[in-house]
């Protein structure tokens, strides 16, 4: 929905390439756009102010490069500064004696319970034996939720009657972990507001009774300007050691991460990237920085493709393409894969610089055409799909009637497919193939 910062900056700088260096006026204009991008990404207002000041100092007077545009140069400065603020990914601190204690805290609905299960799975992959502790006695069925997740993952969950105070539950759970030789204990606490004094006091008690190595704040990547106050509140009470940013698989730009990191200094440890228990990722500063700047997210696109596309089918298609034996049956198979990605316009929005182009595609137009193409191929017999040459007038008429299209549309599809095949025949030529591979940065 937001314009790309890169496009906006290029717009600001326009013909600037000819001058030797960036003047203060140029920079001011550009910084206005940077400020806007950061605010739209929910970076805290006061931080944006400081941030812009630092970038101003670094930008004024820089030599303009011949190879990249001034817009790109400023973006590079902003990007670097963001990277510096975000810091490096930090691993979990699991030092000290066993069991290691991890305490999860956060607002209601930030994703603590789901993240607790994800973290346990992550740790088990690294040969730990985790125990989950259902210390959220307040939300109805929160205990059941953790029990269900534990059962799915085959990870034990410690529960007690909801009438037992959470600090007691946590302390008992650690005793149980010791008895059962479980070496990591993850405490799932209730969601609470950072201004709720009695509940914040309860967190302090849990901390005092369990002495955790890690106190992780679970924060929603969609959080707005409040992120600073929330993080400060929790940090003051229980001394946070790390942040997990959740729901990053949406389209929130995640500026809250910058805010939280800046005011507390705690490192960002993981990102929650989906609803499934395996959807937890070690934090990558560069990806988050690009995202905050709204510079498209190619990595996410690739992930989305990996998620929705059956690799085997895609590979088979590619293989047949290379062999030059790609027929309508293969084409249909690939089309069905493409459809799983969702509307083309949405996919294009994720590619840097394609946002504008995506807007020019009429809603649903491409999808309608894909559907028609699919209907046509579906109305063919297997023989016809494998060898489109046998399609004569009467066969075409049958196909058109069967697919609710016209003979003309069938012909159009066939002629396009014919051209495609011709082009693909050239892939058979090893030299052509090599050139093509080079074009995509593959091969030698």
């Amino acid at each position, binding site marked *: 929905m937001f314009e790309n910062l890169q496009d906006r900056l290029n717009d600001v700088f326009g013909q600037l390439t000819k001058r030797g260096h960036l003047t203060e006026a140029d920079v001011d204009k550009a910084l206005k756009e940077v400020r806007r991008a950061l605010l739209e990404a*929910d970076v805290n207002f006061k931080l944006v102010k400081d941030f812009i000041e630092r970038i101003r100092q670094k930008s004024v007077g820089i030599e303009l490069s011949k190879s990249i545009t001034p817009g790109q140069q400023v973006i590079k400065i902003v990007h670097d500064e963001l990277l510096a603020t975000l810091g490096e990914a930090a691993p979990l601190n699991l030092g000290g004696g066993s069991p290691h204690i991890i305490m999860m805290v956060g607002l209601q609905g930030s994703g603590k319970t789901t993240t607790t299960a994800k973290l346990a799975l992550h740790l088990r992959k690294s040969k730990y034996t985790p125990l989950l502790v259902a210390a959220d006695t307040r*939300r109805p069925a929160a205990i059941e939720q953790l*029990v269900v997740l534990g059962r799915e993952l085959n990870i034990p969950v410690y529960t007690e009657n909801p009438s037992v105070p959470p600090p007691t539950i946590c302390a008992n759970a650690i005793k149980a972990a010791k008895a059962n030789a479980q070496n990591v204990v993850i405490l799932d606490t209730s969601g609470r507001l950072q201004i709720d004094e009695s509940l914040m006091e309860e967190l302090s008690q849990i901390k005092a009774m369990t002495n955790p190595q890690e106190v992780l704040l679970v924060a929603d990547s969609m959080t*707005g300007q409040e992120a600073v106050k929330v993080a400060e509140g929790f940090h003051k009470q229980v001394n946070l050691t790390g942040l997990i940013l959740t729901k990053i*698989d949406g*389209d929130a730009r995640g500026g809250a991460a910058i805010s939280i990191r800046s005011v507390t200094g705690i490192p960002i440890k993981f990102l929650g990237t989906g609803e499934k228990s395996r959807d937890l990722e070690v934090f990558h500063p560069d990806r988050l920085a690009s995202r905050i700047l709204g510079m498209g997210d190619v990595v996410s696109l690739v992930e989305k493709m990996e998620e929705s596309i059956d690799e085997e089918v895609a590979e088979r298609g590619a293989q047949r393409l290379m062999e030059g034996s790609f027929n309508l049956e293969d084409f249909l198979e690939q089309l069905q894969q493409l459809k799983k990605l969702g509307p083309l316009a949405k996919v294009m929005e994720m590619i840097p610089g394609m946002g504008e182009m995506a807007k020019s595609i009429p809603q649903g137009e491409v999808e309608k055409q894909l559907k028609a193409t699919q209907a046509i191929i579906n109305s063919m017999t297997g023989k016809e799909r494998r060898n489109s040459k046998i399609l004569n007038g009467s066969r075409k008429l049958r196909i058109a009637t069967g697919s609710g299209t016209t003979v003309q549309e069938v012909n159009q599809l066939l002629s396009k497919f014919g051209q495609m095949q011709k082009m693909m025949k050239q892939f058979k030529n090893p030299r052509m193939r090599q050139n093509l591979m080079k074009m995509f940065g593959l091969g030698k």
Partner: protein
Amino acid sequence: MFKKLFGGKSITEALGGAKIKESLTRTRNSFFGQINTLFGGETIQPDLWDDLEALLIQADVGVDTTTELVEKVKDRVQLEGITRPAQAQAILQQEMQKLLEGFAPSAVEEYRILTVILIVGVNGSGKTTTIAKLAKLYQQQGKKVVIAAADTFRAAAIDQLKVWGERIDCPVVAGQPDSDPGAVVYDALKSSFARKANILIIDTAGRLHTKYNLMKELEKLHSIASKQVHAAPHETLLVLDGTTGQNAISQAKSFKESVQITGVILTKLDGTSKGGAVFAIGKELGVPVRFIGTGEGVDDLTLFDPPTFVSGLFAV
């Protein structure tokens, strides 16, 4: 402290917004309290506008909406020859209010045999809790309410709703975990007719608005309801976390495109969050706020009333 300084008269009492007022006390003290100091002087100072902009942005109102609001007030101040900050404040209040009002009343109020309310939203926005509150609210109005637990995806979501159902004595129609939510909706509609219920509230699984397949599933639920009951769902309400920043607009836009949301329920306003994004949602998408959630208790839901909301925010 502000009360002493500005000798506040309680506008909210006259408007009957004691609850909103109470729940927004913190918000007011931390943020709009500052607005009152801004507007407290004798003459309008030039940095008033910058400070105002800063405050609105920090309330998640968003860059565009803030800029427009500030420009509008500035223009009117000049045009109407206003010199006192208090008058400028009244104008700001009017302009902010304008973005939230002028919408048709909730379709729930119209008479029909069965009213269907579909509740949608991203994960963790507070749908399930809000549904319990909403059911209670309508029960108190003498309506017979049924809840459909169509969140068959999240672990224990059905249990969560069942616990609430018991607490407020409201029937909950549910299926098995991981079963087809469409079937649950269908069963719930049939059950509502059999029970002669007035209102059916459908809980759906939280989904990020960028997930194509999940949004398609939601469209399916929407169409199942519309096939069984004329013009259903009569209200499709987006539950929006008041802590959410600018992404709220993207959420509202996507849910509007796929299931034509007719309103917003703004939750978690008992914290320090301001929910300023609703101004942009009203302005750009024409979607009204219907209720606000102000706590974890089953009674912590209030009808949203723009004048009360805005005056409540400004009142000292």
